[in-house]
């Protein structure tokens, strides 16, 4: 059951990511990125991270991707064209990424026995309570600092995107 769900949503993730790479229109890339993020939320659920799965859907596939699609439509972004730089990037990027993934896959799979086996619905499912216990006691200061960070980000976004008169 776990393996089947992992294969289905892992394949959906990879397919979405490849579609992001291959599509030439940014709105198609944005929509396939939403597919990747939603299937990642399911994978988080399989790993027992319930709160993060919900946060992933709300923050990433909700807020951030709406922002992306909004900007794509606002700027009326069209298809990208192939240029000299993109040919260079094809020559360097595809083999580089292939080497990276081959190396990492080899390392992880050769140490497969050292890793634990994830099971569905055991005692390691993390809801909101165990997370908030740590965030609001041990990590209270970093948590409060992030609120300042978001405030600064809002002010910065407004200041940068404002029309100058």
């Amino acid at each position, binding site marked *: 059951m776990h393996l089947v769900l992992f294969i289905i949503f892992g394949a959906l993730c*990879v397919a979405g*990511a490849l579609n*992001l790479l291959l599509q030439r229109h940014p709105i198609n890339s944005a929509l396939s990125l939403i597919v990747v993020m939603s299937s990642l939320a399911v994978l988080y659920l399989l*790993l027992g991270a319930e709160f993060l799965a919900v946060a992933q859907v709300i923050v990433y596939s909700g807020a951030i991707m709406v922002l*992306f699609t909004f900007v794509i439509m606002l*700027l009326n972004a069209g298809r*990208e064209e192939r240029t000299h730089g*993109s040919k260079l990037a094809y020559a360097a*990027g595809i083999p580089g990424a292939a080497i990276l993934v081959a190396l990492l896959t080899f390392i992880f799979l050769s140490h497969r026995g050292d*890793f634990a086996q994830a099971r569905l619905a055991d005692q390691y499912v993390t809801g909101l309570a165990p997370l908030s216990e740590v965030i609001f006691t041990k990590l209270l200061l970093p948590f409060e600092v992030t609120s300042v960070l978001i405030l600064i980000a809002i002010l910065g976004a407004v200041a940068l995107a404002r029309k100058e008169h």
Partner: protein
Amino acid sequence: MVPIAYYLVLSAILFSIGVAAFLIKRNIITVFMSIELMLNAVNLTFVAFTRHWSQVTGHLQVNGQIFVFFVMVVAAAEAAVGLAIIIAVFRARNTLSVDQIDLMKR
């Protein structure tokens, strides 16, 4: 049962696709989206290792998931500021192609 190594391999694949898209894509918005893809791949690694660490130590570990939480917060702030910068660049140069935004290379 699924070995944690499979999740790490999936995350490596997603990260590499993100790197390739970052290098290949010519549209500044898509380049920014591939950065988000790489962030997501790293988040999956964190969650997988949290799971691994929980099962190795025998009791619930949440530090990796809290790290993912903070990464999400920073990613949200970064997306807002980054897209505002993209809008400002588009207003100034009237293009979204990274080949034509090369003032700092000259």
